[in-house]
């Protein structure tokens, strides 16, 4: 009997690309800001996600890095701190579809952007993850002076937010709740999308 009898085997979302400002391009301290879609079990220390990340260049003569990223936890967690992170390519300026989902043909979670496979989890998570899976979608930044993607005039929109079923088929999430609240600078909005399902906007204001 499969341990995964639940409805969520993965997540998918269209995420608008916005290049966030970071607090210091040359301050000698790395900084980053991200937007992502994640599948995660009902445990705090496992996840698999894909999205984009802006990392600050510590040498001001070089441009910063604005890339696709994927990250997943290694099987040894929580007894180890291991994660595997791939950073590659460039998201440009358009909307991309990000997915992190168990592929039934090989029982591995594939983290993708569009038709590109960014990385594949290198172990069978069914042996390590709790059976209840869910989805998370968000933006994250490392320093309080940095921005999450999106501005007051151009929010970063997460649309076509799907859960992936065991056969790879898609269905809208019917309910999402904010796991973490905004602040005086970081804002969010959740609503019903005209195209169906839910949408989420995030943005920074004031910049």
């Amino acid at each position: 009997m499969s341990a995964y009898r639940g409805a969520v085997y993965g997540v998918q979302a269209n995420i608008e690309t916005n290049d966030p400002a970071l607090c210091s391009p040359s301050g000698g301290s790395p900084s980053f800001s991200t937007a992502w879609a994640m599948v995660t079990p009902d445990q705090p220390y496992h996840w698999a996600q894909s999205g984009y990340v802006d990392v600050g260049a510590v040498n001001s003569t070089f441009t910063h890095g604005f890339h696709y990223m994927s990250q997943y936890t290694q099987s040894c967690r929580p007894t180890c701190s291991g994660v595997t992170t791939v950073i590659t390519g460039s998201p440009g300026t358009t909307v991309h579809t990000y997915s992190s989902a168990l592929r039934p043909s090989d029982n591995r979670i594939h983290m993708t952007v569009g038709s590109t496979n960014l990385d594949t989890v290198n172990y069978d998570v069914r042996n390590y993850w709790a059976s209840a899976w869910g989805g998370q979608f968000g933006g994250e930044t490392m320093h309080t002076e940095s921005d999450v993607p999106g501005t007051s005039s151009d929010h970063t929109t997460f649309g076509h937010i799907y859960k992936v079923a065991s056969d790879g088929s898609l269905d809208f999430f019917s309910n999402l709740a904010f796991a973490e609240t905004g602040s005086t600078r970081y804002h969010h909005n959740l609503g019903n999308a005209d195209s169906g399902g839910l949408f989420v906007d995030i943005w920074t204001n004031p910049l």
Partner: protein
Amino acid sequence: MKKSNRATIAAIAVACIAGLTTISVADAHSSEIGNADLSTETPAPSSSANVDAEKSASSTPVTQGKLETTSVPDQVIEAVSDHGISMTPVATTDEQVAELKVAISAKAADEVARSNLGFPADLVADTATLATVTTANYGTELEADPTKPSRIDPAIDKRLTWVLTYASAPMPLLGKAALERTDDGPSTIDSQVLVLVDPSSGDFLYSIGY
């Protein structure tokens, strides 16, 4: 005196004050996962606090490498092979690199890596090797039907690249949002990192931290 004060204020303005901020939405596990075995899989409430502590503790100083033109260490080759990366060394000495007359030096490739990944200014790669590399897990998925075996056309396929290795470098630690989490300090994790840089254009191609 005023000039001095302004300079101080400016210096503070460009400093990065740690404070991880996440805006995220999540589905409700209990209502979306159907008949999964929640009764036996509910995590202990203290677990997320452990993750927070890990994030806060992960920003230890990194070691400075020597940027030696040499072979990729065997243990690195073995470790990244587990992530679908294979390579054949082409130039492992300065003399062999010179013979290939590549436009981008190992030092320049190291600058590209540092810039694109936000590494500290004093962090230098431990090794630099010119090699042909294939990324089996990174590329175009040719089989759209997930019920059929994956077929990935590698984005990097037997391509000559600079292969830079770092024994310990800070990578972004992302992870799931947690209701309990507030500002929890620098969110990086020291990882072994392999970076690929195009030796002709200097383009940043790929990195993996593990």
